[in-house]
């Protein structure tokens, strides 16, 4: 895997008019990513459990919606916040469902799925680099690069779910403890990026993996009743609040990007 260099940030000469199809990584990016994770999880739970569709039907349904959203995203050929983040929420749901299916329906131990998804993710990056000679998320100009990007994202969500569940099973500290642990890991990676010269790509993808369990723990913390160590806002209030945060941030991003192009 490549280290990010100054050259990665400069557009190579042949691509001057090319438009990046995915967003730059800003604080707003991480806010929506974190909230999207929780929204995705609650939506999946709601369909599978409350509506009684079951894990299998929910997975099929959500995968079909995800495929549609992916067509929509690919057809934009540029970064449109509302479309991009719809795709992220859906991929978050499907990534989570893949892990849940493997654990609950197929009985695959979490450690095995963690190792399996790590290999799958590393493999995606290897093929991506072999094919494109770059892993830059600042130069997603072609359909092929975008396909690699989304495949990597799907695996980070599946891996993040497996790691999060594995940790909370191994330590038995509940969602608050798990949240603290993943918060510390992300803080440590951020310190590494800003102070110790950790490559931008490494920092980005590792944080992308670990914000999955962090977001899920945080959502549980807000939603769960006080008896179980949460704040007791309930899943509906939490989901609506998170949806509002996503919508506001996406609206702000849309406004800002349309101002920029004027």
């Amino acid at each position, binding site marked *: 895997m490549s280290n990010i260099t100054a050259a990665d940030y400069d557009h190579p000469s042949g691509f001057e008019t090319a438009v990046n199809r995915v967003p730059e990584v800003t604080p707003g990016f991480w806010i929506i990513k974190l909230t999207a994770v929780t929204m995705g999880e609650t939506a999946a739970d709601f369909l*599978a459990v409350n509506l009684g569709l079951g894990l299998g039907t929910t997975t099929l349904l959500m995968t079909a919606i995800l495929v549609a959203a992916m067509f929509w995203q690919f057809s934009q050929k540029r970064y449109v916040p509302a479309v991009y983040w719809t795709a992220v929420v859906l991929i978050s749901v499907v990534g989570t469902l893949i892990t849940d299916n493997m654990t609950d329906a197929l009985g695959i131990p979490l450690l095995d799925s963690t190792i399996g998804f790590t290999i799958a993710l590393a493999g995606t990056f290897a093929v991506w680099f072999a094919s494109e000679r770059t892993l830059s998320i600042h130069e997603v100009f072609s359909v092929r690069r975008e396909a690699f990007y989304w495949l990597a994202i799907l695996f980070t969500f599946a891996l993040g779910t497996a790691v999060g569940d594995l940790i909370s099973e191994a330590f038995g500290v509940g969602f608050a403890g798990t949240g603290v642990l993943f918060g510390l890991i992300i803080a*440590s990676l951020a310190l590494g990026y800003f102070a110790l010269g950790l490559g931008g790509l490494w920092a980005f993808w590792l944080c992308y993996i670990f914000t999955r369990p962090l977001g899920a723990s945080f959502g549980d913390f807000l939603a769960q009743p006080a008896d179980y160590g949460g704040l007791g806002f309930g899943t509906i209030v939490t989901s609506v609040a998170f949806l509002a945060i996503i919508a506001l941030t996406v609206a702000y991003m849309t406004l800002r990007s349309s101002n920029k192009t004027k």
Partner: protein
Amino acid sequence: MHPTLRNFLLSAVLIAIPVTGFVAAEKYLLPSAPTSTAQINTQQGLGDLSAYQVIVADTQKIADTGDLKAAEQRITDLETLWDQNATDLRKADAGAWTTVDAAADEAFSALRSGKPEISAVKQALANLSQTLQAPVAAATAQPVQKIAGIVVTDETGRALPCEVLIGKLRDTLANSQPSASVADLQSRALERCNADDDAHANAFTAQALAQLKG
């Protein structure tokens, strides 16, 4: 050093440091902190059970003197108190409540049988005392666990996926209007299941199924 190798090693160290710190804090800095899930649940589970333990210890002392009639009177205090708090306790931890309740019932019936058997009484009281000390551990001791007669784990003691039992409950309810208490148990089970808390979800579903069976 090759940049990829450097990044790999740096990431590994950056992840290892907080993980190590977290594990160390769990282990050494918080000695009173639970070291196993069973203990966490004991504390969060049914809360302080010392009042019950005192009564059981009294009953054991009285039973040792051979006066089983007096012992039966003393354990009735436990029954009264236990029934008084049943709603709250069951709410706190349905699985643990069911386990203690079963152990207590055995002690009552041992003392109340036509001709109480001193050895059976002592055995039942010792079992109840042990269960009160670690209700959740007792609830999770057997490999395949049942709550209210409903199997809630697989052969390895792992909780069944909560969706399975909820599906069963839904099928059972398909043609009937659930009573208020069954509906309440069902919504609690759904809420726990959404939180990926299979054990508690299954306890609520099992109680609902048991009520439906009457």
